[in-house]
């Protein structure tokens, strides 16, 4: 304690007389408080504390998943990668037929069915017929002639 006081004295010696005087009057000015101020301060403070204690607490919003957030993010990433992989992998391996082609022997078809098909698809049949003729290099005109 004595050592501290000595050190304080040494420090204070470095302070000019003017400054010391000014600091003394500054202290006396700041120490002025109204009479009974601290008793009133205590009363006001305790009232405030009690009022705060009685005030309804603000509802806290607690996120249900606040602790599991990182796991949720990781799980959704794994899910996205897995579904992406499965989707693209499946798309590569499977050859989905655009139209199912069934080879039917025309001889097995009944004549009525062929006639009905020709009647219903006359135009188509005509085009098919013409292209078949062109493919063989003949034409109906030359035959007729």
């Amino acid at each position, binding site marked *: 304690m004595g050592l501290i006081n000595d050190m304080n004295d040494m420090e204070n010696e470095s302070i000019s007389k003017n400054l010391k005087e000014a600091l003394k009057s500054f202290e006396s000015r*700041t120490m002025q408080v109204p009479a009974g101020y601290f008793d009133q*301060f205590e009363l006001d*403070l305790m009232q405030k504390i009690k009022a705060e204690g009685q005030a309804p607490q603000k509802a806290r919003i607690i996120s249900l998943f606040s602790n599991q957030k990182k796991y949720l993010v990781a799980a959704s990433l794994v899910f996205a990668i897995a579904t992406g992989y499965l989707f693209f992998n499946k798309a590569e391996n499977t050859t989905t037929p655009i139209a199912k082609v069934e080879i039917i022997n025309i001889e097995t078809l009944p004549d009525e069915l062929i006639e009905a098909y020709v009647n219903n698809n006359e135009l188509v049949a005509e085009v098919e017929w013409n292209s078949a003729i062109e493919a063989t290099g003949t034409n109906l005109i030359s035959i007729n002639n």
Partner: protein
Amino acid sequence: MTDQALIIQFQNGDAKEPAFTQLLKRHRETVFFQIKKMVLEHADADDIAQAVWIKVWNKLDGFKQESAFSTWLFRVAYNETLNFIAQKKRLKTNSTQNEMDHSLEHPSTQNALKETAIQIKLERAIAELPEKQRFVFMLRYYEAFDYEKIASITGTTVGGAKANYHQAVKKMTELLQQA
């Protein structure tokens, strides 16, 4: 009864209010005057001191007594005072005149008549000190706190606290010497 015993009593929940008021009675004046030396205005010091003690009431349950109660208390006071000053500075940017600066730079006419020129100069010099330097100086000069305690309160090193103190003295001396 020591501060430690009162804190334990408070934390145990039995006679919480009497334990708190005992602590308040012991320390209210030193805390209040330290704050007032920082902000000068009585009303401002009152607001800050109220906020400090409300925080003490709310946080004392979690105080682990790793430091002395007074160190912890002054740390709370230091933070509250700095917050208050920062808020005032922010408000200053929106308003044309700042009450604190007004009181620091131009003491009221009534006071000015009473105060000598040197006192007015000192208040101006104090107002010009950075907040940390001001706080360190007040704790050392008026409360005679050791530098370790001051360092712990202001969150600095012992060397930093010493440097703050000497810088404050130097600046105030220079400002007082100016015409």
